[in-house]
C-alpha cells in the first residue's frame, strides 16, 4: 500500500460505511414494523377513511376449512402437497340483489357451503339443500375453487367446481337448486386444477371456460403409482397439468379447444385472469404459474399467442399465485398484480405489480414491475389478492393474503425446503427425497396486508390499523358489497382455518356508485364488459370478471369509490359485443342496473 495514513483512514471509513448501510436499513425496517399498532375504529376512520371488522360469527358463518389428506406415501410432506383448497366466491346466485358466498372445503367427505344472504347482515348455509355441498366424496377428489358464470344465459349464474379430481359443472335452476351437468357438458373425468375462469373468448355471446391444471391430470393424488409427482424444477418446471379451454357450443355442450387455439402450456398454473389488455376487443388471458414464469396469451379473436416475454411479464421465473387487474393510477388501463414468495434470508422473489408503459389500442403494452417503487412488493408467502376501493376515496386499494403453513411456531421447514428445491430435477421431482415436515412451519403465521393507495403512486400497509390482524394461512380473497351499503367488504378463505368476513365501515363523506350490468347481445352476466367512470376530472376503468385473484371470484357488480363531494360526468360501457354505451346523469350513492343497449 503506497498511500499514507489519511487515505487509509478514508478507505477504512468508507468500508465501515458500507457495512453500516445494511445495519441502518435493517434497524429502520424493524422500527417501522414495531411502530405499527392497532388503531380504534374511530381513529382508523379519521386517518384512513375505513375500518374492517371481522364479522363472521355475527353473520352466522362458522366455516372452517379442512385440508386434503392424500396418499400415504406423501405423509411426510403432507402439509406442503395438501396446502391449497380454501377458496371463496361472492355471487348473487338467487338473483335477489344481495351477494351470497360460496366456500370450498377440501377434506374427503367434507361439505362446501353456500351462504345465502338474509339481507339483514346474516347468512344461512343452503348448500346441502340446493345440492352443492356434498361434492368432496371419496373417490371423486376434492374442491380447490369455484367460479360462477351464466353459461346458458338464463339469468342465473352456474357453478363450475375446480377440483383435484372430477370437476363438476352445476346448472343453476333459477336459484332453487343445482343440477350436475358435467357429463352432458363433456368435462374430463379427472384433472388436478387450481384455477378457472369464465369468459367469452370468441365473442359469440356464450361464456366459455378456461381451466388451468396444476398437478398432471394423470395423477390420482389418493392412489399414487409413483412418488415422482413433484415439479421438475422450482423455477422452470413444465411437467404440471394441462390447460383446458371449453368452448361453449350452446345447449349445455362444450368442446375442449385449447390445443387448436394455441394454449398448450404444461406449467403449474395457480391463478388466471382475463381482460382486454391489448385493446383489441377480445379478452386476453394472463396465467400466473407456480415454479415458473407467468404466461400472457393474447387473443386475436380466433387464436391465442403467448407473448409473456415480449410484454415483459414472462421472463423472471417466480412462484405466481395470483392474478388481479386494477386501474391503480386512474388512467383507464389495467395493471396486473401477481403474488410470489418472500421469506427473509431465504428467498426474496417479491410480488409483481405489472404496470403498462406504452402501447396503443390494438397492441399489447409493455409492462414494467413497479411493485417495489409503489410499496406492494413484500407480503410474505403471498397468495390471493384483490383490488378494490376500500375507503371510497377514488383510488383502488389492495388486499393481500399471506402465510403458507402454520404449524409449530418455533420450528421452520425452510432450510430443508431450500436444500431440496436447489437440487437437480431427479431429486426435487420425487416426493420421497423431500425431508419430512415433522410439524414444522413454512412461512406460517403471517399477516395480511391492506395497502391503501394514496393516488400519487404509493401504497401504505394499514392492515393492523384498520382491524386486519389475523395470521391464518390466507389463500383466497374476494370483495363485494355484502351489506348493500356502498362499502366493499372482504371475505378471506384460510387454509385449514376459518372463513373470515371483514365487514367494512367507511367514512360516509366518501361517496360511491355501483353498477350491475346485464348483457343482451353479449353474454347475460356481461363478463368481460368494461366500464370507465368519469368524475371530478378523473377516470377509472373496471371490468366484470368471473374468476380473479387466487381461486376466487368477486361480486359481479362493479363498485367505484368517488371521494368527497363527487360530481359524476359520465360512464362509458364497452360491452363484449363491441357495443359502446354512455350513461349520463348518474348520482353517487346509487346502484345502477344497466341493460346492454340494442
Amino acid at each position: 500500500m503506497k498511500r499514507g495514513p489519511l487515505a487509509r483512514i478514508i478507505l477504512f471509513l468508507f468500508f465501515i460505511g458500507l457495512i453500516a448501510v445494511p445495519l441502518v436499513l435493517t434497524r429502520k425496517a424493524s422500527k417501522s414494523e414495531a411502530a405499527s399498532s392497532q388503531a380504534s375504529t374511530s381513529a382508523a376512520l379519521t386517518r384512513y377513511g375505513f375500518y374492517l371488522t371481522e364479522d363472521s360469527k355475527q353473520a352466522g358463518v362458522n366455516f372452517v376449512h379442512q385440508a386434503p389428506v392424500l396418499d400415504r406415501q406423501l405423509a411426510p410432506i403432507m402439509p406442503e402437497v395438501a396446502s391449497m383448497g380454501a377458496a371463496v366466491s361472492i355471487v348473487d346466485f338467487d338473483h335477489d340483489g344481495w351477494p351470497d358466498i360460496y366456500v370450498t372445503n377440501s377434506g374427503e367427505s367434507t361439505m362446501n357451503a353456500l351462504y345465502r344472504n338474509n339481507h339483514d347482515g346474516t347468512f344461512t348455509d343452503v348448500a346441502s339443500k340446493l345440492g352443492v355441498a356434498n361434492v368432496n366424496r371419496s373417490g371423486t377428489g376434492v374442491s380447490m375453487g369455484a367460479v360462477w358464470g351464466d353459461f346458458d344465459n338464463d339469468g342465473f349464474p352456474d357453478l363450475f367446481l375446480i377440483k383435484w379430481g372430477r370437476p363438476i359443472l352445476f346448472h343453476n335452476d333459477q336459484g332453487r337448486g343445482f343440477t350436475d351437468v358435467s357429463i352432458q357438458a363433456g368435462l374430463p373425468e379427472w384433472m388436478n386444477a387450481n384455477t378457472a375462469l369464465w369468459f367469452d373468448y370468441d365473442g359469440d355471446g356464450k361464456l366459455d371456460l378456461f381451466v388451468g391444471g396444476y398437478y398432471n391430470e394423470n395423477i390420482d393424488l389418493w392412489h399414487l403409482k409413483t412418488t415422482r409427482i413433484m415439479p421438475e424444477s422450482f423455477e422452470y418446471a413444465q411437467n404440471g397439468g394441462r390447460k383446458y379451454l371449453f368452448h361453449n357450443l350452446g345447449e349445455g355442450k362444450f368442446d375442449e379447444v385449447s390445443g387448436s387455439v394455441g394454449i398448450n402450456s404444461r406449467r403449474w398454473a395457480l391463478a388466471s385472469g382475463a381482460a382486454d389488455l391489448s385493446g383489441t376487443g377480445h379478452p386476453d388471458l394472463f396465467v400466473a404459474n407456480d415454479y415458473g414464469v407467468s404466461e400472457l396469451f393474447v387473443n386475436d379473436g380466433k387464436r391465442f399467442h403467448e407473448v409473456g416475454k415480449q410484454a415483459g411479464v414472462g421472463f423472471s421465473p417466480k412462484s405466481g399465485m395470483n392474478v388481479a387487474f386494477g386501474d391503480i393510477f386512474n388512467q383507464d388501463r389495467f395493471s396486473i398484480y401477481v403474488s410470489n414468495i418472500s421469506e427473509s434470508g431465504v428467498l426474496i422473489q417479491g410480488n409483481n405489480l405489472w404496470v403498462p408503459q406504452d402501447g396503443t389500442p390494438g397492441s399489447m403494452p409493455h409492462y414494467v414491475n413497479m411493485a417495489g417503487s409503489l410499496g406492494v412488493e413484500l407480503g410474505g408467502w403471498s397468495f390471493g389478492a384483490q383490488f378494490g376501493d376500500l375507503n371510497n376515496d377514488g383510488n383502488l386499494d389492495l388486499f393481500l393474503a399471506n402465510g403458507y403453513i402454520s404449524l409449530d411456531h418455533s420450528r421452520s421447514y425452510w432450510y430443508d425446503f431450500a436444500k431440496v428445491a436447489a437440487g437437480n430435477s431427479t431429486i426435487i421431482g420425487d416426493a420421497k427425497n423431500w425431508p419430512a415436515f415433522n410439524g414444522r412451519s413454512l412461512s406460517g403465521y403471517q399477516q395480511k396486508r391492506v395497502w391503501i393507495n394514496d393516488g400519487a403512486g404509493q401504497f401504505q400497509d394499514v392492515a393492523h390499523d384498520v382491524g386486519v390482524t389475523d395470521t391464518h394461512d390466507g389463500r383466497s380473497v374476494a370483495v363485494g358489497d355484502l351489506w348493500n351499503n356502498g362499502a366493499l367488504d372482504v371475505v378471506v378463505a384460510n387454509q385449514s382455518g376459518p372463513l373470515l368476513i371483514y365487514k367494512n365501515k367507511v367514512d360516509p363523506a366518501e361517496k360511491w356508485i355501483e353498477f350491475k350490468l346485464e348483457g343482451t347481445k353479449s353474454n347475460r352476466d356481461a363478463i368481460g364488459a368494461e366500464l370507465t367512470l368519469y368524475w371530478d376530472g378523473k377516470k377509472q376503468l373496471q371490468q366484470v370478471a368471473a374468476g380473479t385473484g387466487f381461486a376466487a371470484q368477486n361480486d359481479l357488480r362493479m363498485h367505484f369509490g368517488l371521494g368527497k363531494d363527487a360530481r359524476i360526468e359520465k360512464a362509458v360501457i364497452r360491452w363484449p359485443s363491441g357495443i359502446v354505451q354512455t350513461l349520463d346523469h348518474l348520482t353517487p350513492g346509487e346502484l345502477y342496473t344497466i341493460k346492454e343497449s340494442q
Partner: protein
Amino acid sequence: MSQPATAISATNRPGAPQWKKWLSLDNRYVPPAFITLILLAGQFSYGILESYERTLLAIATAIGLELILGRIFLGKWLNVASAYITGISVGILVRSPAFWPFAVAAALAITSKYVLRYKGRHLWNPSNFGISVVLFLLPASVAMLSIQWGNNMASMIVIWVLGSIIIWRLRRFHISATYVISFLVLAVIRSWIIHQPWLAEVSPITGPEYQLFIFFMITDPKTTVRSKKGQCIVAFLVALVEMFFRLDQSIYAELYALFWVGPIAILIEMWLDSRRTKPSQSPAVATVTGTSHQPIS
C-alpha cells in the same frame, strides 16, 4: 470470487506467438470468459439474472472501485479481470428486488481486499466476503441464487466438464475435487445423523450456486494456502465446517464456512511461514505467492 491463478506453460512462454497465448487456456482471461459463458448460458436458457441492470451495476461497481483503489493505493491501473469476476459473481449470486444491494455487495467485496489485510495479504475471498456480509446483515432484502436456476442435469454436466478442464489446466482441480468428495461423504454422515434421505443432503451441490462456489470461490489463489496438500486440507475443512453449519440449518452454509475457514487457514500459513523464515526474510516476502501475478485480486 477472484481469479484462479495462471500457470506458465509452453504457450505462455515469452517466445510463443501472440495468437497462441490468446487461445491458450493459461490466459488470465479464460476464467472471466468461462464465468461469462455460464452467465450467458444460464440467462438465455433460464433467465437466471434478477435483471441485466442489476448485474451490470455489480460489475461496474467492482471494476470502478478496483480501478480507483488500485490507482490510489498501488499507484497504477490494475488489470480488471479479477474485479470483473467478483462483480459478475455478485451479479449472479445476489438476489434482491432492489438495486442497491448489488452495489453494496460488490463494493464490500472489492474494498475488503484493501482494508482487511494482514502483512500485505488480503484474507477473505472478495465475493465471499461481500455476499456473506449482505446475506447476514440484510436478510429481509437479500437472498442468494439457490433455486432460481434450471434443475436440468445436462446443463450442469456441461458446466462440470468445462469447469473441470479449466480448473485442471490451472492446476487447482485438486481443490474442487477434494471439496466435492468431502461434501458427498459428509452428506452420508449428515443423512445418518438427521435421518433424512441422502439425496436430500446431496441436493444442494447439484444446484447452480455450488458450481460457482466450487469452480471460482474456493479455488481463488489469493485467498487459499500455497501448498497442494494444504489446499486439500483447507477444502476438506470448508466442507467439514459447512457440515456443522448445515446441522444448524444454515441455508448459506458453504459461504459461511469459507468465510471462517479461509482467513484462518491463511493466517496459520503466514504464521508457519514466519516461523520458518524468521532468521533470514522480512514479512513482506510472505505476501508474494508462487502462483499470483497480481498484487491484489
